[in-house]
């Protein structure tokens, strides 16, 4: 695993090029309730970033803003220097942002191979989908992905049958097949066993070598595994509380206060 090397490259890049994703002063309010409040956030084009925060900190809304599901009330969201604020979801996805949902969402009536092939398709217009057969190169890519996620043997049974972990992996596989520049992964290990969790962590770290990856997670053990030298961002009440390595975060009094309550009050 070469996470350390990845990290150094991602740390040096912001100085030269604009960041891959740049969130500037974004506020999202639902009828006066501010789910996200003046959020500022940046990631580079490689490496892994973990976002943690207590319930209701606005983590999922944050992903919704990046993927275009929710439009920010104020502020700007730039991806590769483009404003994605008013773009529809599919346009943002074509720009290079892939999202994995909290509960695995795959097409249950299609086989894993078909699931991957749909994501792998490069030109996603109606015309192309209708008249062009799947290119050989894409079929090969899909074959390789199936092997990586361990579904080769079941590539031709409908995706409703696999277990939860296989579906989680299938969805991550679909993300990779889409070959985005930025992967957003929402609670990838909820409901998995320890061993499965660790394997998922390794998978995400290997992906971070060539992509930007944002992971949202509650499971602190898992966060420690994948954070390593990578930065961790703590969200609280819709804005960034602090950023830093896992060790810094763990010793930050503000974080302790948010998670455990005010020590003075006890």
């Amino acid at each position, binding site marked *: 695993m070469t996470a350390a090397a990845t990290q150094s490259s991602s740390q040096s890049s912001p100085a030269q090029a604009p960041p891959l994703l740049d969130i500037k002063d974004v506020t999202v309010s639902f009828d006066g309730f501010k789910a996200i409040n003046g959020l500022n956030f940046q990631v580079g084009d490689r490496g892994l970033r973990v976002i943690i925060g207590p319930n209701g900190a606005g983590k999922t809304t944050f992903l919704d803003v990046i993927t275009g599901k929710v439009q920010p009330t104020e502020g700007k969201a730039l991806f590769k220097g483009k404003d994605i604020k008013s773009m529809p979801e*599919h346009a943002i996805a074509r720009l290079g942002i892939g999202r994995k949902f909290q509960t695995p969402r795959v097409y249950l009536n299609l086989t894993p191979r*078909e699931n991957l092939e749909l994501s792998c398709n490069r030109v996603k217009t109606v015309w192309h989908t209708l008249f062009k057969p799947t290119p050989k190169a894409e079929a090969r890519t899909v074959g390789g992905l199936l092997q990586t996620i361990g579904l080769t043997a079941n590539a031709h049974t409908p995706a409703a049958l696999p277990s939860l972990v296989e579906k989680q992996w299938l969805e991550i596989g679909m993300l990779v097949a889409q070959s985005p520049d930025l992967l957003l992964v929402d609670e990838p290990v909820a409901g998995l066993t320890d061993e499965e969790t660790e394997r998922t962590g390794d998978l995400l770290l290997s992906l971070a070598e060539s992509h930007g990856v944002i992971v949202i997670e509650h499971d602190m053990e898992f966060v420690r595994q994948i954070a390593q030298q990578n930065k961790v961002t703590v969200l609280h009440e819709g804005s960034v509380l602090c950023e830093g390595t896992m060790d810094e975060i763990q010793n930050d009094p503000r974080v302790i206060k948010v998670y455990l309550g005010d020590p003075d009050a006890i």
Partner: protein
Amino acid sequence: MSDMTTETSGTETPGITAKAEQSGLAKRWELLIVVAITLIFLFLVPAFISGFRLGLLGRFLSLAIVALGIDLIWGFTGLLSLGHGIFFALGGYAIAMNLQLNTLPEGAIPDFFSLYGVSQLPWFWQPCYSSGFSPVAIFLIPSIIAGLLGYLVFRNRIRGVYFSILTQAALVVFFNFFNGQQKLINGTNGLKTNTTELFGMSVGGNVMQFYFYCATVVFLALAYLLCRWLTSGRFGRMLIAIRDDENRVRFSGYDPTAFKVLVFAVSGGIAGIAGALYTVQSGIVSPQYMSIAFSIEMVIWVAVGGRASLVGAIVGALVVNWGKTLLSEQYPDIWLFFQGALFLIVVTVLPDGIIGWFRYRAKDDLRSLFGKPPVVATYPRLEVDETVRQEADLYGKTQPVDPTTSTAPIKSGENS
């Protein structure tokens, strides 16, 4: 864990080419079967049944064409339209208007106009003079209207039951429009075609009716092949993907609206052709084709035959309509009871229809009828599961299962 992205270009998946050849062969066989059945219906069937029954069969076959259209959007894409009567009737009106004008001498207008004191042909009748316009109009106008309606609805992400309700409301609107406009389209009386002429022959005559029967068979085969082509390749998988999880489709970079609009328009066009064929064979088109009940009936044909199965749609349309004819001849006053019960039974007991039942449940149901327990299956299949294989190697056991029975059947249920 190895790196996924580098490996993707690596291993050649075995069996891809073999599979492609296999599917090509299967396609050729299927085409052969379709052609064979078409020929049987064209040449053999007319020799064996009476002209009256043949007329009925022709009408049922044209209804089977609508069923294909409904299956395309409901069975595969998960959009339940309760408004296909609109497109069906539009196709019927398009051909009826052309036939009416064709029969008349130059410059004359259809008789019914004089009843309402209209002396000038309304503007939208004008293009129907041209005999090149009608064949195009019977599918183009319905699909344009379907596409427009679909665009306005899908664009706002209105789906599920809301879509169904809106299509039903649209149906009521079109019904009211056609029903109320005596001066434009003869209102509730509709337009007759059986008194008109085509190529110098009476449309209601035996010869012409036989030609229409043949045309229906050919169009049904063509519609089947079109739907088969649409649903078998990547496009078809896309439709199923939209049915399963539309948001996932969106986040994968596809625009589901475009796909849905296209497939709805195609479905509307198919319904238009069916409506035209049905009109010329039944002799009249009237606003009754746009009644709420008729459009829901179309849905039940597909449900009875089996959703997401094109053969099922055809079988369902034929079976239900044939049953309707038999029963309503015998017991006219209780036919509605049967029809109502049919809706309930299909939804509760036979959710996958006749074809689906044969495909997934026939074996177990027949077994249980004779008091035998069902066949169980495992996932993953024992012969491919690594752990089982390793253990089999370790303990030297032979592989325990018969590969033909071990795969669990999976319902192609709808996820709405």
